[in-house]
């Protein structure tokens, strides 16, 4: 059907450009509850997305471009879908922009070979490993778990000659560990995404969460705190990379779309900070070519090749992340999609960042800063106050502050880790953050 769509698009003389993407997916989903397997699902999907560009004109007669799109399921009417997309494109008046042309694509590793071969067996094995790991600790129980494994094939063709195909895999797991001591109950919920199973140490992850679950039984509400706050591993990843509901502040403010829309005050060649930087200088790459990065791919939705883009160097913005459209608008180079976030190693070993007293936040309820202003007031699901050699668990309280202010006074560890959507220091010490306690 892809060939039929491409042939039909090639015959259209009223289009300034077009892109068609074919997606074929197969997914296995396993859901467990305490009484057994709640649900087992197999999901197949195939669809085609067509994007077209058409020359239009502004009210003053200036040349303009309109875009339109349409989707198709196998067997649906191709001509009708192209007509619809073309009609819509004719209504829209935007500054002139184009489509990317052919370019070499990097060979980015984004597949789990085992999952490609037998997704069902891999996901049942992951579920079994989670159960076995949880069973090692008699004081906690795995009360819910979900394992999803997807194989996705994407084939992109555009009017400028790009014809590219890639296959990717993705594994999502969620689990809940529960514990009880007298009337007190506690749980740890976690969700993780990777391209391949080998990028997880599932047993270690479950062991860590089991410890948090047990410590959580002893946790009290925190007192208010102004001082060093340490984020490590997954908590640091969420802080830097955001999650699937909320992108990160850096991703928003460094995007050409935000710049064009007036959302981002950042300027190329200028510091991304308003105030003096007291901590380590900030250097960031937006890396869509990171091997096994959850936001990696050989090419993006427009067909732009994956890149490792130097975004911020020593606090100064180097470039905006730009699709072809916004690159044309702002007359800057296109970079393709943001991809994953990467930071260089810091200058101090993690052990040197753990100087007492400090607060370590292990898990937020939901770290969701305002991605435009950077302000946040987010509940802490679980953490430790580390003082006088004692790690005192707490839950509740709110971390209150501003994202860029926090990044202006942080020290990064020399040790790095890979966390799916983030590669960089695994420990960060924010020197002065505020926690609002309940008193």
């Amino acid at each position, binding site marked *: 059907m892809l060939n039929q769509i491409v042939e039909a698009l090639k015959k259209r003389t009223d289009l300034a450009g077009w892109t068609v993407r074919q997606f074929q997916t197969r997914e296995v989903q396993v859901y467990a509850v305490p009484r057994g397997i709640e649900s087992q699902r197999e999901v197949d999907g195939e669809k085609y997305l067509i994007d077209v560009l058409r020359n239009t004109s502004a009210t003053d007669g200036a040349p303009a471009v309109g875009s339109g799109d349409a989707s198709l399921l196998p067997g649906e009417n191709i001509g009708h879908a192209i007509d619809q997309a073309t009609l819509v494109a004719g209504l*829209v008046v935007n500054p002139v922009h184009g489509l990317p042309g052919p370019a070499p694509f990097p060979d980015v590793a984004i597949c789990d070979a085992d999952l490609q071969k037998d997704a069902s067996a891999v996901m049942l094995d992951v579920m079994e490993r989670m159960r076995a790991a949880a069973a090692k600790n008699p004081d906690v*129980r795995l009360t*819910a778990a979900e394992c999803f494994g997807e194989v996705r094939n994407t084939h992109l063709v555009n009017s400028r000659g790009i014809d590219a195909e890639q296959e990717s895999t993705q594994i999502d797991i969620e689990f809940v560990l529960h514990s009880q001591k007298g009337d007190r*109950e506690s749980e740890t919920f976690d969700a993780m995404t990777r391209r391949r199973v080998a990028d997880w140490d599932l047993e270690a992850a479950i062991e860590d969460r089991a410890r948090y679950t047990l410590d959580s039984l002893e946790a009290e509400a925190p007192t208010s705190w102004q001082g060093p706050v340490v984020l490590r591993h997954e908590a640091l990843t969420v802080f830097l990379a955001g999650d699937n*509901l909320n992108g990160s502040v850096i991703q928003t403010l460094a995007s050409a779309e935000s710049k064009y829309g*007036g959302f981002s005050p950042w300027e190329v060649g200028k510091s991304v900070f308003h105030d003096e930087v007291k901590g380590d200088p900030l250097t960031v790459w937006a890396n869509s070519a990171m091997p096994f990065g959850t936001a990696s791919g050989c090419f993006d939705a427009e067909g732009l090749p994956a890149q490792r883009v130097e975004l911020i160097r020593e606090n100064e913005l180097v470039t905006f992340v730009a699709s072809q459209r916004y690159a044309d608008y702002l007359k800057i180079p296109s970079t393709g999609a943001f991809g994953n976030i990467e930071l260089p190693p810091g200058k101090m070993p993690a052990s040197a960042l753990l100087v007492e007293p400090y607060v370590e936040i292990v898990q937020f309820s939901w770290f969701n800063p305002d991605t*435009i202003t950077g302000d*946040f007031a987010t509940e802490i699901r679980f953490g430790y106050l580390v003082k006088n050699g004692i790690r005192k668990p707490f839950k509740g309280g709110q971390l209150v502050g501003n994202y860029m202010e926090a990044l202006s006074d942080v020290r990064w560890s020399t040790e790095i880790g890979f966390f799916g959507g983030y590669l960089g220091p695994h420990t960060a010490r924010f020197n002065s953050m505020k926690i609002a306690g309940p008193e």
Partner: protein
Amino acid sequence: MTDMKLPLALAELRPALGEIVGQGLKRAPYFSILLSSNHGLTIVVDNREERVTERPPAAGTVLSAFDGATNFERAIGGFNLGKIQSAARDLVNGISFQKYTPQAEPERRGDFVTPVLIDPLEMSTLEKLDRCREVQHRVKGSDPRIVNIQVIYNERNEHSVFADTNADLAQRVQRVNMFLVVIVAGEAGEVRYDYRAKAGSAGWEVLTWSDEDIQRTMDGALALLSAKRIEPGEYRIITTPGVSGTICHESFGHGVETDMFLKERARAVHFIDKVVGSPLVNIADDPSQPGSYGSYFFDDEGRMAAPTQIVENGVFRRGITDRYSATALEIPRSANGRRQDYSRKVYARMSNTYFSPGTSTLEDMIAQVDHGIFLDKWSSGMEDPQGWGIQVTCHYGHEIKGGRITDRMFAPIGIAGYVPDVLQSITAVSNVLEIDGGNCGKGHKELVPVASGGPHLLMTARLG
């Protein structure tokens, strides 16, 4: 009467579903089919560009075989009869089902359509685009500090057909929403924004903007340039219906989804028929509420929509269920079995969840507060069913001093606390009921359209 406009592929398949269900039942104790087609449109118009895009479509068939212990499903993109018949055979032939007798259900048949006055499916794209342009034009250029104005329109066109032994149901649910976003920049380059939204299970008739709506959005954005962070602490607060709804949604919405009971994740399971709030607190979930954004006629498991009284005069009565959790827990079902789309499983999910109105007037409530905060607008929330902690973030709030709202503005403001403590502190409930539409995730995924709301509430909570 609004036209059903059932997509041709669904209409053609529907007559064959009974036979497929019959085949499935030869091996499975319970078997059902859902045909689900979600399409939509998004239009964004701002000062610098326009975008008209299809919402990512999701259309496919779900075959479910249930034996009381496990729900086995095959989900197939699209509506190809041959593929569905083949998948149904594969599904039931590959499984050793346990013996199970499903609970008897009444016969349900019928076609249901969201009543709309101005039907999005009858309008041309140009007409919708022009209406968005018109709203955007009404705000444009009013203040030099305004750097952009966005109008965002979304429509969701949902069609589903459900069949099991006792059901042959079809529905068209039409949802629309529109956001007006005003972005401003201060002298130091700081960027702030305010927004307002309209939403409903309805047509364009609910997307009208008064001059006051527009002016308040602009005023809100400009005022945010001088807003301060609030001093963390405990405050007497008055919540607007939107903020009340978010508290309701995160506490006695997510907290009483009974799949969470089954997973031992919900503290509410220990509070059935116990006091959880002040006697002024009444909370319901009602998918049958006309016009609200989270409404539907039957859920994704063929259960007819009906209200559930969750909290009655401060006492927790019951949760909301899907088939699996109701079966496992041996509790009555409610019509809350919902899936994001055909590619995802059903969970117990909210529809329209709200605090019921009381008898106080807002003016009287404000007059009762000597020093407190009026929480104007919510921006996000997250559930904590096990810990029953509240995390609701407000875009901004105003100071209340001496029984009056002042111009002093704080942003953003986080609300925290233990749910029963916060609900116990409610001392007045206003006599209005307003419901906001939005999307709700289960944890960080499984997005479904919902609504939440209520009246203004006067209570005590920790802010930060």
